Each structure stands twice: as structure tokens, then as C-alpha cells.
């Protein structure tokens, strides 16, 4: 490109150029690109040209919104807050600091039966899992089963890196603050006999997390051996290798642990706790009726005004219950349609004037 104009060329010249030399004609090429004549679509934004867009948006969004809304409404979901800050709450008793291993029971009724797979979540509110220092406080290499990292966790885990001169496994604040309530669901039968609802522990974490990202330290020895020389996180009662008797769900690959380690985006979040699998097509997974929730209340959230919930939900093609998206689509679609109408009016009114308008100065 001729942009770097070198003045020196003028001054010193090259060798004397012979008359009639080979210097070429400097006429620029007459190509569409160089002459900026590339074929182009040149939209002009006026009411007339834009209003189809608005109508199209309206026409597309409203049906989508309705679809989503209907889908979302078809999802059954029940949410039970068991924080227990209210004195009436059965879990209120567990709030006092000197109570250990408190178990409380909450009764609830399903008005409608839950079909299909039912997901059991625990939800936390006002829990800042996305806090910067909290998010960083983990060691992925350690969780991936790396031996070096197991015994010498990353500095990011401070101050939950070492405990009693032993490396903490799993280190860091996230692991340390792992949710440790135990929730059990019982269906109260007609004769007030309660049958426990079978809760599946596995399959709640991402497949890649369970199989790729999280790994126990390798070795044939029992898990306990592999985790020797490590300390349990300060807040934990049990060491990591005793999370679950099932070896496939123990240690770092314990799915509750994995789910917890996936830090939530917002301070109000839910995490998948258990799966209630559909038994057969004939019977609803959770028939309508009375249930009670048995909670081993360990996790202290009331100190920071947090709340704990248990959520039962079915899912649809678009995931859990989410009324917002449907409403949003309908709203945006309607607004767009309305604006389209406004533009139509304007276009109708001003078309003549704008067509005759000319550049005037």
C-alpha cells in the first residue's frame, strides 16, 4: 500500500532512471473493490421499510411465547422452605446453635400428581456462591485426581488448604461449605403409613463432570488409602472418602459433591439433589397426596439470612418451570407488533411527504 510515503525517495532518488524506462503507469486498477463499487444491499431505515420486521417479530414471538408459557405451566413444581426461621416451622428447633444432629419433618400435600421423572432440588437463597474469592477457592487438579495436587493443593484454596499440617482434600472454600443436609421424602399412605420415596443419588451431575473433570486419585487401593495423608475439610464431619458407601459415588466423584462444586451463577439458586425416576407409565411418579420431608438439618443459613428450600419438579423439553421466558416472548412480541402498527400509521401518514422530501438547504 502506498501509505508509507517515504520522503527520502524524493530527495535522494534512486539511480537515475533512463528515459522511457520501465516505470509503469500509476493509474489505479478499475476494479469494483478498489473503486468501492462492490454490489451492495443498501437498506434505508424508515417506517415503511422497517415495519415488516416488527410484524414478523411479533408474529414469530407471540406463538413461541405462548408455546413456552403453556409448556412451563404444565410443569409441576412444589417448593418447600425449611429454613425454619419462622417459629411455627418444624425446623425452628434446629436453629439453636447447641442442637446437634437435628432432624425435622415437614408435611406437605401434592395437589396433583407428578408424572414422569421428578427432580428433587435443594434451593438456597442469599447464598453468594458466585463471590469472587469463593469461586476461586478450589483446586481443579486435585479434584481431577492429580496426586501432586492432592498432597499440595493450589494456593487458591487458602485458607482451606491445610489443616493440621495435612493437605485438605478437597481443599478450598467451596468444598468446605458443601451442603450437608439430608433430605428424605416419604409418601404418607391412606392409612398414615409412610413409605419412603426412592431417591436416586446418581445421574444428577453432568456426565463430563463425573467422568472427566472429577476423578479420585488413581490406585487400586481402597479409597481411604488413596486419601491418606489428607485432612477432611474443616466443616465436614466425614472425610471425602466416606461420602457414600457406593464406591462409584464416593470420594471426589460423589455426585452431590460434584453438583455442589458447580458454583451457582446467582445468589438464589437450586441444585439437583435427587432423582425420582418414573416407575412405570401407569402410575404417576409422585401421586397426589400427602408427603412429609425428613430433614437432617445441618446446614446453617439463617446466620446470613439465607433460606433453604426443597423443590420437587418435573421437567419439560425446555427444562424446569420457567414462566418468565414465555411471558417475555409474548410481551416482546406484542410490543413489537404494537410498534409495527405505530409505524404503519406513521408510514401511511407521512409516506407522501417523505417521498417528495428532498434535500433542502
Amino acid at each position, binding site marked *: 500500500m*502506498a501509505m508509507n*510515503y517515504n520522503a527520502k525517495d524524493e530527495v535522494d532518488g534512486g539511480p537515475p532512471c533512463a528515459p*522511457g524506462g520501465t516505470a509503469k503507469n500509476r493509474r489505479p486498477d478499475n476494479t469494483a473493490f478498489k473503486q468501492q463499487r462492490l454490489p451492495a444491499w*443498501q437498506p434505508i431505515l424508515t417506517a415503511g421499510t*422497517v415495519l415488516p420486521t416488527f410484524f414478523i417479530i411479533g408474529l414469530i414471538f407471540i406463538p413461541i411465547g405462548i408455546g413456552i408459557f403453556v409448556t412451563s405451566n404444565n410443569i409441576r413444581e412444589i417448593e418447600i422452605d425449611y429454613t425454619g426461621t419462622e417459629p411455627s416451622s418444624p425446623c425452628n428447633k434446629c436453629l439453636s446453635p447447641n442442637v446437634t444432629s437435628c432432624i425435622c419433618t415437614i408435611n406437605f400435600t401434592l395437589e396433583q400428581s407428578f408424572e414422569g421423572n421428578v427432580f428433587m432440588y435443594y434451593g438456597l437463597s442469599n447464598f*453468594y456462591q458466585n463471590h469472587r474469592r469463593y469461586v476461586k477457592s478450589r483446586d*481443579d487438579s486435585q479434584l481431577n485426581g492429580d496426586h501432586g495436587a492432592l498432597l499440595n493443593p493450589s494456593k487458591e484454596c487458602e485458607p482451606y488448604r491445610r489443616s493440621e499440617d495435612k493437605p485438605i482434600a478437597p481443599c478450598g472454600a467451596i468444598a468446605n461449605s458443601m451442603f450437608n443436609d439430608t433430605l428424605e421424602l416419604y409418601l404418607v399412605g391412606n392409612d398414615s403409613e409412610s413409605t419412603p420415596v426412592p431417591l436416586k443419588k446418581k445421574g444428577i451431575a453432568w456426565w463430563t463432570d463425573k467422568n472427566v473433570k472429577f476423578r479420585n486419585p488413581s490406585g487400586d487401593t481402597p479409597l481411604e488409602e488413596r486419601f491418606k495423608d489428607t485432612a477432611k475439610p474443616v466443616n465436614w464431619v466425614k472425610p471425602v472418602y466416606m461420602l457414600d458407601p457406593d464406591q462409584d459415588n464416593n470420594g471426589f466423584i460423589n455426585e452431590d459433591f460434584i453438583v455442589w462444586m458447580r458454583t451457582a451463577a*446467582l445468589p438464589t439458586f437450586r441444585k439437583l439433589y435427587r432423582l425420582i425416576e418414573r416407575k412405570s407409565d401407569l402410575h404417576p411418579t409422585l401421586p397426589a397426596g400427602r408427603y412429609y420431608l425428613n430433614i437432617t438439618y445441618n446446614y446453617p443459613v439463617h*446466620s446470613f439470612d439465607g433460606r433453604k428450600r426443597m423443590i420437587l419438579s418435573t421437567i419439560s423439553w*425446555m427444562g424446569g418451570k420457567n414462566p418468565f421466558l414465555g411471558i417475555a416472548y409474548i410481551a416482546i412480541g406484542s410490543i413489537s407488533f404494537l410498534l409495527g402498527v405505530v409505524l404503519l400509521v406513521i408510514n401511511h401518514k407521512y409516506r407522501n411527504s417523505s417521498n417528495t422530501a428532498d434535500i433542502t438547504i
Partner: protein
Amino acid sequence: MEREPAAADEPRPPGRRRRRRRRRRRREGRTRTVRSNLLPFPGAEDPTASAAKGARRLRRCGGTQHLADNRLKTTKYTLLSFLPKNLFEQFHRLANVYFVFIALLNFVPAVNAFQPGLALAPVLFILAVTAFKDLWEDYSRHRSDHEINHLGCLVFSREEKQYVNRFWKEIRVGDFVRLRCNEIIPADILLLSSSDPDGLCHIETANLDGETNLKRRQVVRGFSELVSEFNPLTFTSVIECEKPNDDLTRFRGCIIHDNGKKAGLYKENLLLRGCTIRNTEAVVGIVIYAGHETKALLNNSGPRYKRSQLERQMNCDVLWCVLLLVCMSLFSAVGHGLWVQRYQEKKSLFDVPESDGTSLSPVTAAVYSFLTMIIVLQVLIPISLYVSIEIVKVCQVYFINQDTELYDEETDSQLQCRALNITEDLGQIQYIFSDKTGTLTENKMVFRRCTVSGIEYSHDANAQRLARYQEADSEEEEVVPRGGSLPQRGSTGSHQGIRVLHRSQSTRSHRRTGSRAEAKRASMLSRHTAFSSPMEKDITPDPKLLEKVSECDRCLAFARHQEHPLAHLSPELSDIFDFFIALTICNTVVVTSPDQPRQKVRVRFELKSPVKTIEDFLRRFTPSRLTSGCSSIAGVATSKSAHKSGPSLLSTLANDGALLRLEERLDPQAPGLTSNGYSSGADGWAQHKAAREPEPEQELRYEAESPDEAALVYAARAYSCALVDRLHDQVSVELPHLGRLTFELLHTLGFDSIRKRMSVVIRHPLTDEINVYTKGADSMVMDLLLPCSTDDARGRHQMKIRSKTQNYLNLYAVEGLRTLCIAKRVLSKEEYACWLQSHLEAESALDNREELLFQSAIRLETNLHLLGATGIEDRLQDGVPETIAKLRQAGLQIWVLTGDKQETAINIAYACKLLDHDEEVITLNAESQEACAALLDQCLHYVQSRSPRSAPEKTASSMRVSFSPVCPPSATTTSSPSPSLVIDGRSLAYALEKNLEDKFLFLAKQCRSVLCCRSTPLQKSMVVKLVRSKLKAMTLAIGDGANDVSMIQVADVGVGISGQEGMQAVMASDFAVPRFRYLERLLIVHGHWCYSRLANMVLYFFYKNTMFVGLLFWFQFYCGFSASAMIDQWYLIFFNLLFSSLPQLVTGVLDKDVPADVLLTEPQLYKSGQNREEYGPRTFWLNMADAAFQSLVCFFIPYLAYYDSDADMFTWGTPITAIALFTFLLHLGIETKTWTWLNWTACGFSILLFFTVALIYNASCATCYPPSNPYWTMQTLMGDPVFYLTCLIAPVAALLPRLFFKALQGSLFPTQLQLGRQLAKRSPKKLRAPKETSAQERLPGEPRTEPSEQGSLGPSGSFSQDRSSQVAWPAQQPACSPEASGEPSVVDVSVPLREDTLLEGLSSQTPGLSSPGEVILECPGDSKMKPTSASRAAPLSSIFSLSSFSSLNWISSLSLVSGLGSVLQFSRSGLQMDKQDSEFLPSPLPPDQNLQATDYF
């Protein structure tokens, strides 16, 4: 031999060396001493130095100075120094420092937001890109340096005692260099010897200043007399000269010979590096300045870097962004402090204590949070902004360069962009400051008319022929294969026709064939004949004058052998003869023959230098020779020349007519140039010439320093008074009957801008008298005339001639011709001797030489006898009026700053439509500061009173009294154009004083156009500076000559015209265009595009970053203001750099908001740039607000969609990133006005790149990217319908309002640009119409008059319409009918400079126009209006376009009016003529001030 000690020098410890050098420098003083390198070191120079060196010879002459060698090194870096030096330079950019600081901040553990290494990546990337660019540039510089350094030349070697070949870089100061013809001079060399017997050397300075004419250089005095060949070994003199400086036009010094004699050195002795030796076989010189100390390189300032206005505004907005960033961070910090305070004591589970277990205090946490926020939100200050802008500008420059419509076929040159970073300034220009000569005009001078001894020769045929040229030219532009216009040209019939035919064929052939080599050759050919376009060369002589000339010639040939040949002529004929002799010889034209370019036609008779000493004078002008007219000089000459030039010279013949020599010897190359060819009858001349014309070797070529000179010489040749030879001591003129007359050239007093004239002192061969011929500006020459008494008849006759001549001069000026007066003085021997004495003293004076020479010249150039005057046309360039009209429509104010005199300037201004005939012209010519102040006040009053325009009649009449319009205000008084202002140099000087400048500016701002005449280069730059600083306006200066350089440099945008006057303006400019008319497209199309593109891109950048940062900021409300980011750090860092950069670049480079043809037909669209419509504070903040809104939408839609879900941070953040990307692209889509496939590709590429990178990144490593660890996030998202749903709704929702308001605005309040686009869309056919028609398209309400119409309108047409009707239209168009231009039936007396002379001519020459009745009608009106004007206290006599009505009323009103002690131009009054005369003539004004301002009281 020099290099050996040089090598020995190197190992000296640097410290000592530096010390010594410093000491040396102290002693150096202000001169440089140069000795021959061949000499042994003088010894007594410097004891320490010689002690340190032992007996070693100093390698460099002088030994006391550190002198640069001739190695050219323009590179900035070496291999080793590149990295540190380049980094150092890059860190001068504040932005880079900032980004590095941010990146380093990441290494503080408590603060780090990203992986420290990753945070460095973008900064390193940017630095690396810039470094690579610098490296590449430096390498190309290195390569060209290397090439130049290894050119060879002959240097005298001491060992070999001969000239040996050396590289340029090995040349040192003090070396002797031998150069042969056509070699380029390697360093600044003092000319010591030349193969030319006169000790001359011709050089071409095209490389230096672009001037292709030959310049003469002279061997140092004292060396030219050497008989034998110059031997460097014997050179023992010492040269003392100035320190190296960059003044190309000055060199001073002296050479001290062994015997203590001194001789002065001047610039005529210096050969400058970069020039080419021509016409001289070989020269030898000693190197004075080498390498970077040469004047050529000192003048080379390299490319320029300016900061554009848009960039300045952008920087201001960047500061706003910084402020915003700090605010956001502070807010966040406070929030975090509060948050920490709230949750800390509550033992929240998510609170992470310090590593030692203690909790952070809220304040510390807040500080950390602040710093982290600055890192996280750094995207707000876009790191890629500067790089992107640079890329876009480079591309814009590329496209401007590539525009074929800016390519000039004639000169094979296109527009050059020398400044890379101010392209968008082109779209915002408000004021254009233009030079006149060479910028608006061609600077190709064409002889048009002349007047000799009071009789005008109008050269009608010539005018017709010129008109035909113009037609032919325009025709050539239209049709590409231009065979058709041939016969038309040939139809001139005369010999010129044949030559034209010949020439046009030669130039056309290459166009038809299109062969590049051929075209180049043709263009080279035309370059070699600088200042000799066919137009200049071919002059159709005026028959009357031709008759007289030949009569003269015949008479003289007849009377040649008598005692006083000239006495036989009538005074008029004698004047005519002298006039043509003066035209022919009073110049510095070099004669060359065309077949051997640059080969001097050598016809020597005698070798004699100009009179150099008194002895010389006495010897040569012995009384016997002077009185008897018969001398032995011929014999002496013959012997001398035989001695010098050898047998090739034939004997010279001394006639009894003293030094008259007849042509006897013929140059072998020009055998046809015999005297017998001219000996036939006078009437046979033309035919003879025509018959002989096809012989090409006949044609002599004239190389002139200025185009005027060439035009005059060619004109004289048309009258068969041909300059055939010029040597430094003699000039030969060929006349048909007289044959060859050889004039002994005694002195040439060159042209300078202060004297504004040049003179030659010659000895006339026919009379043996010493004559002085002076040619110069009429204002100068007229003052120097011999005062003639009014008593005797002769004196009265002279007086009459003078007044007539003055009259014609004014007429020429009215026509826009450049006028020159030719005068003569006969010196007696005693006078001459007396003058010579003082002149020689002045010449040999070492200091104050210029002043003394000036005084000396003034002594010589007095008491002149007026011969006549010439009118030379400096033709307007093609398309200048149209361009100016377009630029005007575009809202540009055009000021013309010219050094020319007022009349010429005004007339050119009329010709190029800068001034309109129906608008008023305020003329400011003040004599003193106070007068100027008073005038300015009046003008302001007037302009202000005028603007409300209560009653049209009243204003019109008051206007007539105080400001008479130049031309009758035509019937369109209702649409009142603002007046124009004309100011001369002196008044400008006053007006630019501190206390007046505001008033002046205020006045000038009201005016439609401003014309500053007689302004010096400094004043030009001051005006530009004033407008720039006071009005805060964007200025553009355009010029072509060295006198425009200062203004070009001062202006925001400097444009140079790569035209006739050399390269200096181009070198100083930011853009160089081949022609003025290209300015239109450059500004209106490219300027607009560049501005619009860049403005939109910058806005978009700010929008993009703000919006992106907004997303992060809103998130802080949900993460405890902990400076956490939900967007992965990789996306965060590379988003700007990779994912979203390409589409905006493509749009920034290619987007065309309005097509070029619409822009050209509707120039007012340009105003959007001037008013900063597209990028101003308002648009900026609107843009930011929109960005904030969009970020809100784009944040909260995903927020609500994922509220209380099990999405983790990055599963939620990635959709937001994607949404942001889609929103950006859609936003860009709304902003993009033209969608080419490149835009589509870029957008597609961006999306594809994002997803590809995200997928790869998310699949690459499970544990590698703490803390975000986004493994398989994207893949999971791709299977989630909610992801798509949010990605669809959020961008649409974010952009709906923008789209809606754009549409509303486009329908309801469309901007001019939008209308332009609609226009383009609606009628593409109309706009694709040929350029010519579109250019002529007139806008309603814009009163424009085409040239042809003006011609036809004429006096009568305008007269009938006009109430006041004092004056007719000036015949200002060259294309006007020849009758009109030939006979001054129409006189615009806007140039009332000499009241005395003009009136006479006028009264006799405006017969048809001014009938007495009109005068009577006129006068009462004026007198009636007079009180009004007096009461208004705004009586200002301006340009009075009164023609011949010298009514008493006028005078009385005038004298009332001008009671302020200041006088402007005013219409002359017949009654006062004599009085004026007597006052006027004898009082010579100071040379710089011209005569237009006359003090009345």
C-alpha cells in the same frame, strides 16, 4: 587512506572521546572549516587531539569537528536496539502504559481477576503488532538506505593519484569528487572545476524541489580562471562556511587561499545532494556537507503525524470512559465494603477469610475490590480501539489512493496521502485557505496581450487560438480515443497549427495504444520541457505589431552600419524594438535544443566573464572604444576564444558596429540555423518559418526559472525575435533581417520578491550604449520611471503614454492577466562606472551583502524609460469554478491567500466564481493601525446593519454609498448573499494584531469569501492559525509553492498541489493532489466517507465496550460486588480483539452512507461532517445511554430466565456472551448502510469464530483454566433449548427501541444524509448520468452563472435590470468573445489603483455603456443617500465599480466618506487627476507596500 586511521580511531574509550568531542564542539563556533582530505594534518590544530593520536593524521579534514560521513541512515533501530527502543517508544503512548499497568496489576494475588499470563496476552498482542509494523517499515528503510549508500561515484584517491570508484557512503567531508553528466550529486559539494569553459555547471533540482528546469552553478571564483585542469593535490585552501542548515536557498562562506586571500562562496557555488548534473561533461568539487548534514537530508522531515479532530474528541470521550470506569469501580468497591461488613460477622459460609484465617476488613476488601473491578472492567477502555482505528485509516488511505477519479492522466499521478491518520479530518473542513497561482490557476503562463509605447495590441487571433485550446482540452477529457479533435487543431492554419498537430499526435498516440512504457516516455518528455506547454509556445502574433516589428527590423538592418542606428527609428518603433529585445534578453532562460535534451546550444564567440572588477571595466570600456564604436576587442576576443575553445570555434567577425557579430559559425547540430535563412523579404518570414517548421532540429527549447519568462521569450520569438543562445556573458538574439545580434551581458540583477523586478545590464551591439532593461511588476516599475516634466511636448507625450499604459495595465488586471512592465534605461559610461564601483563593493562584501546588493540594484533601476507592458494569462485550472461552487455549497468557506496584487487576485476570484458579481465586496486597505481599526468597525457596523435587512431599498442604497458593489447588484436583491472581503497585505498585518484580530475574524466570518492579497507566507500561516485557534474551526490549506509551506503546515489538513512549482509544498503536505479540482472529490466524497465511517466506528466501539462492561457491572449487584465475572476470562479478554472486531472493521472501511454521486450532486451533505452530526457529545451520550439500556436488557433477560435454576456461573455467563455478540452484530447491522458480501462474511465469520473457539476451548482441557473451568459448558448449552430462546429474545428486545427510533426518525425527521440515501435509491438512473451534467446541475436558489451566460448577458442585459448600474460586467472569462476581451468596452474599475492614468482610457473607451443620462439619473440617488451613510458612520469606500462616471457627486460623497483618515480604493475623479499625479508619482512607496492605498488626507 582515510579509512585506516578511521579504524584506529574506533577503539578509543568512548568516555574520553565524548569529552573531547564536547570540547571540540565548544570551540567550533558557528562556522565549519573544511580542508582537503589529501593534505597532511596541519599539526597546530589541537594539542590534545594530536597527542592522543601521535603522529597520526586526522582522518577528517579540519580535525576539530565531528563531521558526518555520507552514509545515509534513516533507520531507527539496529538489531540489538530494536526491542528496547521500540518498546520504549510504544510506551510513550499512554494507552499502552495503562494496559500494561492493568496487566501487571493481575500479578498481585489479592487483586487478580484473570490468570496473570492471560491478562498480558492482549497487551502483548497489540505491542507485537505495532512492533512488527515498525520493524517492517524500518527494514524497508534500511533496504533503500543500503541501495543509496552503495551507489558509486568517483573520489580522488591520494594513493592512486587519480579518481577511483567509491561507494557513496565512503565519501567524507573534504574529499574531492568528480561527477559526470547525468550523475546524481552524492553530497553537498563546492564546485571547484567544470569542464565548461565558463566554469559553469548546470544542475537539475527535480529530486530536490521538483523543478525540472536547469539551474546554473558556478565554479568558485578564482578557480574558474585556472588554465590547466584542476588538480586536487594542489588544493591547499581552507573553506569556511556555515554550519549545516536546511536552507536550500542560502549558502555562505569563504575560501581562504594559502596566500591569505579570501573569496566569497555563495549558493551558486554549491551543488546540492540529490540534484543531477546536466549539460556539463564533468565537474570536480570538494565535499562540504555529507550525509545527514546535507541540505537535502536536513530538509527531509519524513512522514507527518497529526492528531485528527475526531481523534481528539475520541480521546476526550475515552477520558469520560475512564471516569465512568472509576465511578463503576468505586461504586462497586463501596458496595463490596458494605457487603463484607454485612456478612462477615454473620459467619456466612461463602465468606472466604484470608489465608491466615483472619477476615478482611471491609475497607481492605473494598480497596481490593476497586482494583479488581478496574481490571475486570478494563474492557471499557478498548485496547483494540487504537489499533482498529489505525487499520481502518490505513485502508481508507488505500482506497483514496486507489480512486481512479483522483488520478490525473496528464501527470500520471494520483492522490498521495502523506499523513496516514487524519483522513477523517477531510470530512469536517470548514475553512479552505487556498493559494492562487498554481493552485487555482495552472501556473502555465500564456502570453495574451501587450502594449508598447501606449498602443495596445490585443492579439485577437491569439485569444481565439487559446479558446480553441481550451475546447480541445475539454474535448480530450470527454472522449478517450481522441482522434477526432485533430483537424480542429490543425485548422489554425499557421505554423503553430502544424506544431500543435505534431505535438498532439505524439501525446495521443500513447493514450490510444495505452502502452505504459510509451505513456511514461511521453510524460517524461513533457517533464523535460518544463514550462513549455504548447500553449505557451504558440503565439499568434498581432498583425499590426508584427508589421511594426518587421519594419523596425528592416530599418535597422538598413541603418546598421550607420553611427546611431536606433536614431533612425521613430520613437515608437524604437520602443518596439527595445521592447522585444527586453522580452528576449531580460531573463535567465537557458536555451537547449530538443533533440539532445540538456545539451546547451553552444555558439561562442568570445570568452569574457561579466565585468568583475573596475580594472576589467576600464580595460574593456576604453574611451576609444566607446566613442569611436570601433575597437580591437574583436581581435582580442578571437584570440581568446581560439585559445580557449580551440579550432572548433570559427573566427568571429567584428563589424564596424562594434560588438555586433554576424552568425558565421554553425553549430554542427544545428546546420539549418543560418543567417541567410532570414535574409529574404520581411513578408516571407512567416511562410519561411512555416515551411521550415517541420524540421525538428530547428526548434530551440527554453528552460526558464519561471513560467512567465518562458512565455515572454516564446512571445518574442513569435515576433521573430528569437533568443538563440545565452551564455553567462552574452546573449544572442536572432532577427530576420538583422541576423544575429549578440549582446554583451554585463550584469544580471535577478528577480526577487522585494524588488519585484529584474534587470539586465547589457551593451547594445548596435549603439554600443550600455542599456539597462528592467522587467517587473507594474507597481514597482511605474514608480521608477524618469519623472517627465509637463512643460515640454515630449514630456507630455511620455506622460500620456504612461497613463495609457497604466490604463491598459489596469485593464489587463481586470481581465485577470498578470502584468509586467518593461522599461529601459540608457546609462552613460560615467554613470555606469560609478554604479559599477559601488556594485562591486556590494558584491564582494562579506556581511550584509544582500542589503548592499539591494541598494545597488535600486540605484541602477531608476529613471527608467517605459517601453511597454505585457499581459500574461495564468489560466485557471480545469474545473476550478465548478469545484469552488461545489465546495461552497458544501458549506466550506474559501479564503484565497495570495501574494499577488489585489486586482489580479480579485479578477481571478471572479473568474473562478469565488466572488459573485451580484454580491458586495468589502475592501480593506488601510494605511495605519488606527485606520484599520476604524475600517473594521465600520465594516462590522455595516455587516450587522445589513443582516436584518429591514427594507430592501434602503439597504441597497446605503450599500451603494458606503459599499458600492463591484458590479451592479443584479435584480436578485432579495436573496442577499453575504459580502466578500478583500484585504491587502498591509491591512492584514494590522488586522492580525492582537487588538484587532477578533474584529477582523468576526467580520471575515460574516463574509462569504475572503481574499487576502499581497500576503507574505508568514501572514498566510498567521491567518490560518488565527482561524484555527479563534474560531475553533477545521482548516484546510492548499497550495503548490514554497510560499505556501508555512500555511500548509499550520492548517489542520495541508494539501499540496504537485504541480509546476516543485515539491516543497507537497513535502510539507498531508495530501498531495495533482489538481485543484480533485479537492472536490477528496473532500466531499472521501472526506465525508472517511469521517462518517470513522465516526460511526468509534461510536460503535464505545457502544460495544460500554454495553459489554454494563453486563459485568449489573452482575456485581448479584455477586456481592466482589468483582466476579460470569463471563469467562477468555471471552472477556478476547471478545473485543477477536470475536467482534472484524465486522466493525469491514464496516468501518467499506460502509458508504451515501453514494459518491449523490454526495457530488448534493454537496450540502458535507455539512453533516462539519457540524459533527455523526459523532458529537450528544451522539456519544445517546450512544452510551443506548448501550446501558441494551446491557440491562441483555443482562436481565438471562437473569430472569435462569433465576433460581441450577445453572452454574459459566453456563449462565456463556449465553450472555453469545447474546452480547448477537446484539453487537445486529446493532452493527442497523448501523451499516451498505451490505456487501464482505459484511455478510465478516458477520458470519464472527459468529462462527465465537462458537468454534468456545467449543474447542470448552473441550480442550478439564482442569486447565482455573478458576472458570468451563469444561463442556458450551456443548451442554448447545443442547439446551433455553439457550437458544434467550439468545433469540434478548438481542431482539435490546435492539427493538433502537430500530424503532431509527425508523421513526428516518420517516419523520430524516437527516440530510438519509434524504440523500433515499434520493440515491429512488433515482439511481439519474445519478449515474455523466459527471458533466451532474456537475452543472444547478440547485434552485443558488444563483450561479455559467461562463457563457455571462458573456451573453453582457452589459446591456444587466444594465436593464439594475437600478444603480454603475458598471458593466468585466470580461473575465477567457472564453469570452474575443471582441469583448480585445476591446475594453466593458471596464470594471474595481482596481482603481492609479487614478491618473485610468480615467483617460476609460473616458475614451466606454462609449456604449455610460450615456450621460444614466449619469444624471445616478447622481441624485447617491447624493440623496449620502446623509444616511454619514449618520450611520459606516461610510466606507470600497471597491468602487464606477466606470467612467466621474461625477462630482461621487467625489464629494467620497471625500466625506473618507474623512476617517483612511482611504481605500476609490473611484478616480477626473478633476483630481493632475493633483494626484503630482503627488503620486514622485513619491516612491516602500517596496513591499503597493500603491492601492492612497492617503487622501
